[in-house]
Structures are given as C-alpha cells and as structure tokens.
C-alpha cells in the first residue's frame, strides 16, 4: 500500500506553512502525526498533490500554562501528553484520554491538533474538547482567530478550519479546584476507535451538582455534548437514580451509525453506560 505521488514540503515556520497553503489551496493537505492521513493516503481515500509536514515547526509543540489557561501546541504528541507532569497535575482528563488512544507507537507520532482537526467523530479528543470548553487557535493569511470547540465540529471530517488555515494551539481553562473528571471509553481492542465513550467534567457543591459537562465520542456525525443529561443533573445529588437518568437522556440524544462495532441500539445503550461510568468516576474524584 503506497500513496499516490505528491510533493513534500517541510516548512520550519508557521508563516511558511500558511504561504504554502495559500499557494496550493485544495491541492494541499497538512501532515501532523500522519496516523490518520497517511493510512487514508495509502488506501487512496486521500490523494493530495502537496503534503505540508508541520513536524519541523518547533513552536507548534509543547505544553505550558498562562495563569489558569493551559496551552498545548497543536503538534504536541499523545506521547507527550501521557508523559506531561503539568497535565497530570492540572488537567488529568487529557492524560487519561490520551492513554486510551491507539497504542504506544501510534501515540509517538499522533498529535492532539491532528486528532481534533481531522474532524473524525471516532477520534477521542473532540468530545474532551467539548467537555472542557476548549478554544482552538487557527492562523491564516489574515492573522489569528480563536474558535470555541462548540463551534468547531461541523460534520464528519468537516470543521471550521479554512483551507488556508493551520491550527496552532489548543487553549483550555483549568477546571475549578475540586472538580472531578473522567474519560470512559468502550473499545473492542487496543487500537480500535470507541464503540462509545464519554468525557465528564463535574463540580459538586454541598453534595449537589454545581456544574457538569458531558462530551460523547463516536455516537453521532460529530462529537456532541449531552446537553439534556447535563441539564437534568444540575442542582441534584448524584445518586443512582440521577446517574441512571443522565445515562438514559444521553443515549436518547445519540445518532450512532451501525458498523462492525454494533448496531444503533447497542451503541446508544453503550453511550448511556459510558456516561454513567464516567459520572461515577468523576464524582469519586471530586473534592470539596
């Protein structure tokens, strides 16, 4: 399996990458970690004439904090995320998610920006970005714009990123102290996409739910928020009945596509189960 021929470009700066995108337009694709795009090119599902590799742009890689905002370069690998002590302390949800993506070798190359920008509802970061209220920094010929995750995912393989834009950074506010989170993923085997998965960020006050956000993976044309479930939980104690109801409401909001991982009914049920599992674990991690 060999891709169609293409011209390879490895710019060393963001402006150089954008200039190449402006020159080649629809004929170009951006190469991040390459673990979605290269397989698609090998299968000839994608055949760009120009491949623009961001791997040599050093400023696109790294994790740091500005006040309460965590900033992750788009070319930061899943391996870097798994190993990050900064994230382990301030954003453990991202580490827990990355640990469940693919396998060690794939995580060596796969990047968070590529995972988000690909627009695949089976990728794990989009639902987490929704649950965390992340903001995505997109840079094009006209400068920089910052798009909330809630406005980024438009459809399967369709996102708000323009053909001449590069995603450079992901910005996430650290959840308030005392918050608990969890990414619960059901997969058939290592390396598989989720049959269903749920990301939960939860904060409790006086035994009642003060804030909750729930993102779902691979149960709709894009990652989605389980808004009905969130609304039903607010202000309530998270007892078995409340958690079961949230699971039911979340599963009702899914529009899964039947495939080898299961039919629609099964996937909807599993989405509900993952929401329940993630809520229980997130609750156990809440403090105060």
């Amino acid at each position, binding site marked *: 399996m060999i891709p169609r021929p293409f011209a*390879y470009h*490895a710019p060393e700066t963001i402006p150089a990458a954008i200039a190449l995108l402006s020159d080649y337009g629809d004929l170009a694709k951006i190469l991040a970690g390459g673990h979605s795009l*290269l397989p698609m090119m090998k299968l000839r599902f994608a055949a760009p004439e120009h491949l623009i590799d961001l791997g040599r742009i050093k400023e696109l890689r790294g994790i740091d904090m500005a006040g309460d905002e965590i900033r992750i370069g788009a070319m930061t690998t899943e391996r870097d995320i798994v190993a990050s002590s900064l994230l382990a302390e301030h954003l453990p949800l991202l580490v827990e998610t990355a640990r469940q993506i693919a*396998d*060690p070798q794939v995580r060596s190359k796969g990047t968070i920006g590529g995972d988000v920008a690909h627009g695949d509802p089976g990728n794990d970061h989009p639902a987490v970005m929704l649950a965390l209220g992340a903001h995505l920094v997109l840079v094009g010929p006209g400068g920089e714009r910052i798009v909330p995750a809630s406005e980024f995912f438009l459809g399967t393989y369709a996102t708000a990123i323009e053909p001449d834009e590069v995603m450079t950074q992901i910005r996430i506010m650290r959840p308030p102290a005392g918050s608990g989170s969890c990414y619960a993923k059901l997969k058939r085997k290592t*390396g598989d996409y989720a049959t269903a998965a749920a990301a939960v960020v939860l904060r409790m006050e006086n035994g009642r739910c003060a804030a909750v956000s729930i993102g779902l993976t691979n149960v709709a044309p894009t990652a989605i928020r389980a808004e009905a479930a969130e609304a039903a939980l607010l202000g309530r104690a998270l007892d078995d009945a409340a958690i079961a109801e949230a699971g039911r409401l979340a599963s009702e909001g899914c529009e899964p596509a039947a495939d080898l991982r299961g039919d629609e009914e099964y996937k909807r049920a599993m989405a509900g189960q993952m929401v329940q599992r993630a809520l229980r674990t997130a609750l156990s991690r809440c403090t105060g």
Partner: protein
Amino acid sequence: MAKKTAVSFRLNQTPVDVLVEPRELLIHTLREKLATTGPHIGCETSHCGACTVDLDGISVKACTVLTVQCEDLDVLTIEGFAKGGQLHALQEGFMQEHGLQCGFCTPGMITRAYRLLQEIPDPTEEDIRYWMSGNLCRCTGYQNIVKAIQYAAAKLRGEAVATSHPLMEEVTV
C-alpha cells in the same frame, strides 16, 4: 513520477543516504534499499507493530512514517542489537524464555521492548502488557514475551538471571 529527494539519516549508527520519492514509506526504504529486513511488513496499517523501529528515541511503526520525514534522525532496527556476536539482553531473554514461535513479530517486539525498558527499567507485568500493546503476536499468547522482557529488564539492571538454554553460552557474555 514525483521528483526524488535525497534523505540522509543514521541507520544503526551508520550514516546512510537514500534517494526516494516523497511517498516512500520508511519500511520500504529499510527493506528494499538498505537490505535491512529485520523490521517486517505485517498489516501495513499501523496495527500489528511488526515494522516497529526506534526513531530518534521513540518507538514508531515504519509503515506509517515517510522516509523523507527521517532526515538527520537516528533509526535503530533489530539489526543494531547484537554486538560482536553477542546477543542483546532482550534477544537473550526471548531465547531463554521462548518468547517466540514463528518469529515474525519478534524484531518489532524486541525493538519496542528496548524503548520500553529505556523508559521504565523496572516494569511490572501490567506495565509490560500496557506499553507493549502496539505489538501483536499470534503464536505465543504473550506469556513468554512478558517473561522474556522481565528477564532482559533484570539483566539490564545488573541483576543475576538464571539461564537454562543449552546454547546460551555461545551467544552471551
């Protein structure tokens, strides 16, 4: 045909220069241009791990890396493990613990396990199973692969290891 590109990297510490189309995958360059056939082509879809090589200190699947991405990097394959007729501790471990049957997955297993032991010198069985999960074996059921990696980990930490293989003396120090 797209224009070819000259790429220079170090293969098992030896500088190499190749002329490749941008679309050429590292596994094909290694096997077809550099006579380095230790890394195998199993699934060719980045699942099985048989093509695993070490690229500048990280484990990657050479079927999903372009050779042009390897400019100036260090590539380590199974061919780089034995030194002067003496096996590496991992090769010794796979021999002693019978960590293979058909042997197809073994070069990738050992190359991946090498990086694992660089990062976690004293892994638990659970660590080994988690961090080796990108390599598939259809013969062994993994039990003896885990034991082989534990053997190598102990030897690399300088601990005494028990060997019972009749040919072990010929290939180890």
